[in-house]
């Protein structure tokens, strides 16, 4: 071994308390002469012969400065006006959340496998499950999933297993990122995936869905609002699925459930989605917060942790992880999923958010999104070179069809500190002129006016060709 013992090199490593004297004393107690002796089982051939080729440790101030420099080299939604959505939204994060979730009692606690000293985490998860049940109208929710996409993939597996079928129907209007993750999972499970085509209105056509359904289909996915922001004909789609006995899995934005029909109201047996808008920073897409809920009969098939309320030996109420025979640490290869670590701390963020929100706040939040979407549409209507290819109802997101390439507008707007939206070229019938624009409760009239003026300026420069030709 040529590696030097590190405390000889650098005596100040603050996360490791041992002094050289303490190390010597501890080695005496153990009866060893050096720490190297502990590594005697490592064959000589595999031992690292040189120190790790990593820089020396830095002081706290130096590390902080590095990250501040990196952060300054970025520009995010704090300094830019964001109309980006597509599953992650620029939402208002209440100040109360950070102080609570950064309490070491929550932050540094392990998974609550010892319920007697984990009641705080357990009760919070139970309350999160309760909130998700109330939002979706379903009976059972789990402790969280990695994100909306993985939640959907696992929900499809649950539905197919419950239906004992091997065919899944995904709508073409589904978030393409979710589609990719579901495809990976279904390939592993040997599932056939059929597509429900998108109709002219940008939503799934119930008759078209009816035509591809057959007795082999175990699960039909509905995303509402769909990737283009449009409200799907959920009742008609669900009725078609019911005709052949397929289980409906709903993908929903939890904020939209303040005003849009809840999954239980259209007969979905499972609901999943991305709960990032409930108080979670966008953080370039992670950590996010997937949720999953189901009707009671699927509770023993759900993946991940579930908390139940029960009595302790003293006869008092308490909380405990339950139905664990579903899980990988008991079932191993027969488990319904391999998920172990989840997104617990983000579920706590969302639970605090929903607690602050209350019934009236929830209603106000939904209306705030609807009103801004309506205001955006009204502001942009009549701008020459802007069309709304899909006129159906939306929640907080819509497609603009520009007479010039949307990529050029995106760059033009970015120069003026606006993140204009997501390019849709390649998604279904969308083309180069199409842009997905989102407005949350955070957008002001001035923000919307700014986007309107930028579009006028950009399109006024020269309108090259008609929207039809741009498709």
């Amino acid at each position, binding site marked *: 071994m040529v*590696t030097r013992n*590190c*405390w000889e090199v*650098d005596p100040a*490593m603050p*996360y*490791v*308390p*041992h002094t050289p004297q303490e190390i010597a004393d501890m080695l005496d107690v153990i009866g060893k002469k050096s720490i190297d002796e*502990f*590594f005697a*089982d490592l064959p000589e051939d*595999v031992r*690292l012969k040189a120190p*790790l*080729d*990593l820089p020396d*440790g*830095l002081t706290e101030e130096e590390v902080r400065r*590095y990250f501040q420099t*990196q*952060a300054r080299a970025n520009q995010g939604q704090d300094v830019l006006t964001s109309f980006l959505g597509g599953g992650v939204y620029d939402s208002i994060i209440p100040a*109360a959340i950070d102080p*609570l979730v950064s309490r070491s009692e929550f932050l*540094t*606690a*392990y998974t*609550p496998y010892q319920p*007697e*000293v984990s009641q*705080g985490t357990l009760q919070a998860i139970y*309350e999160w499950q*309760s*909130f998700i049940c*109330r939002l979706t109208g379903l009976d059972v929710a789990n402790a969280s999933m*990695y994100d909306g996409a993985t939640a959907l993939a696992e929900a499809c597996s649950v539905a197919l297993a419950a239906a004992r079928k091997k065919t899944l129907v995904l709508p073409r209007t589904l978030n393409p990122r979710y589609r990719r993750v579901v495809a990976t999972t279904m390939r*592993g499970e040997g599932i056939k995936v059929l597509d429900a085509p998108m109709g002219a209105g940008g939503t799934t056509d119930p008759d078209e869905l009816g035509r591809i359904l057959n007795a082999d289909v175990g699960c039909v996915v509905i995303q509402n609002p769909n990737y283009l922001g449009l409200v799907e004909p959920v009742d008609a789609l669900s009725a078609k699925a019911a005709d052949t006995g397929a289980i409906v899995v709903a993908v929903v934005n939890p904020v939209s459930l303040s005003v849009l*029909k809840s999954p239980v109201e259209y007969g979905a047996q499972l609901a999943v989605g991305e709960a990032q808008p409930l108080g979670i*920073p966008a953080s*370039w897409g992670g950590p996010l917060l997937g949720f999953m809920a189901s009707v009671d009969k699927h509770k023993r098939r759900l993946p991940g942790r*579930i908390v*139940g309320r*029960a009595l302790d*030996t003293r006869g008092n109420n*308490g909380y405990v992880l*339950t*139905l664990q025979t579903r*899980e990988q*640490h008991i079932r*191993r290869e027969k488990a319904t999923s391999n998920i172990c*670590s989840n*997104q617990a*701390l983000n579920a706590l963020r969302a639970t605090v958010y929903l*607690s*602050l929100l209350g019934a009236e*706040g929830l209603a106000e939040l939904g209306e*705030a999104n609807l009103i801004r*979407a309506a*205001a955006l549409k009204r502001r942009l209507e009549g701008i020459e070179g802007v069309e709304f290819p899909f006129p159906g109802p939306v929640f907080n997101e819509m497609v603009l069809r520009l007479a010039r390439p949307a990529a050029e507008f995106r760059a033009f707007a*970015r120069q003026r500190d606006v993140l204009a939206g997501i390019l849709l070229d390649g998604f279904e019938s969308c083309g180069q002129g199409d842009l997905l624009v989102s407005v949350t409760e955070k957008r002001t009239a001035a923000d919307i006016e700014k986007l309107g003026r930028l579009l006028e300026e950009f399109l006024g420069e020269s309108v090259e060709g008609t929207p039809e030709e741009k498709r």
Partner: protein
Amino acid sequence: MSGAETTVGPKNGGRWNATLPDSIFAKGSSGRRGLTFPAWDGDPVTSDLPADCRRGIPADMPSLGEPEVMRHFTALSNLNHHIERGMYPLGSCTMKYNPRLNEQVAGLSGLADLHPEQGPEDIQGLLAALKLLENSLCELTGFAACSLIPAAGAHGEYLGMLVIRAFHLARGDRDRDEILIPDSAHGTNPASVVIAGMKPRTIASRGDGRIDLDGLREAVGPSTAGIMITNPNTLGLFEMDIQEIAAIVHEAGGRLYMDGANMNALMGKARPGDMGFDVVHLNLHKTLSTPHGGGGPGAGPICVTEELARFLPGPWIVKVDSEQDGKNGGTYTLEKIPGRGSNSIHSYFGNVGVCLRALAYIMRCGGNGLTRATECAVLNANYLLARMKDFLEVDHSAGCLHEFVATGSGWKEKYGVRTLDIAKRLLDYGLHAPTIYFPLIVEEAMMIEPTETESRESLDSFVAVMEALHEEAKANPELMTSAPHVTPVGRMDEAQAARNPDLRWAGPCNCG
């Protein structure tokens, strides 16, 4: 009552003085608000959302003001054990201190506020940091390429299995779908194999959890896709025959996956890439000090050999040559090479915020500090082992690495006190329990991992508590079999919880 208390509650124990608050759903009063939104400040406008799209029955939610919400969750927090309260000797979980610096830097504006649809031009600083982390993890593990995308250890296992499967399929090796797994493995291993579309095949390990070479030779064949090995294994022992194992599996055409849950034993000492492994996952929330958060979010990046790199999912962070500089407004781009999306496992790029925390830790420690962390983690485990083997049965004649497995079967026989009872009684003393009843191959197992961030005094007090428990077990075993006594709740009726599950608040709101 004070007399009874001194018997039941240890003198220096963790008295909680905390009881469960009412459910948040029972609190508050209709009309209260903890959160309001800016009113629409433009011309009056109404939504044209048709009635038949609208929700029929509103979701019933409790109504509370912000102070009540703060008190509720603070009251909940007081019911948790956590690292800053006391030791967490959970084997295989590496419950080391979570530096606050990590939290501070990951929360910076310019990092936490980035939208995942923002392109490279807006996120050069982030991409540089993530690339630095990828390179650091490759150096730490001895591999060529890294994917930061897996959001947890099990997610990393899943991606690793997908990568191995894709590698075989790309060579036309369609029948290689069997992954060998020692019976000492964690339950996520076989579960990950199954969901990746392969078949786990259990192979017996020897008494020390190490792999039986003859059994392995018999098990490999044309259907062998690979093997999953935890190294050091779940008994805390290094797989001494690893090069021989690698030779056997490689010769049979398979690839080697290392579950890196125990990487805290090896930093700066040995690297999976140098041992013959082809893939490893790291648990950033174990080895690299990011917090567990009561169950997550963690992160489980994987590192792979050059030959497997092309099967990692995109987007890839690529540093562009200097002559191309400026093309994308910076020096890093995101590449989506055709075909790479096929192993997509997350909407975006995984738990980016967790990755930034791990990078802060690596930079703070440096190569030397990481090596020292491993050395002191191993020193601490051996110190506990040396001090406890007189009264606790441990079959570790040759010492251990960062953790060891004791068995409570002696106490069970002699005093009628099971491992579960020891675990529960430890809670009364303000300590967390070790990992219990795992690995499955050891009876009444107690897996103890102190980590390097515990001081000698902290270890000594743990030993003192275990000694006290030993005396209690002899003198007053009922005290242990009925433990815990001073925690906010007693043992939960888990059987009842599973038989009649109560999984959500079903009552009305604001009823308290």
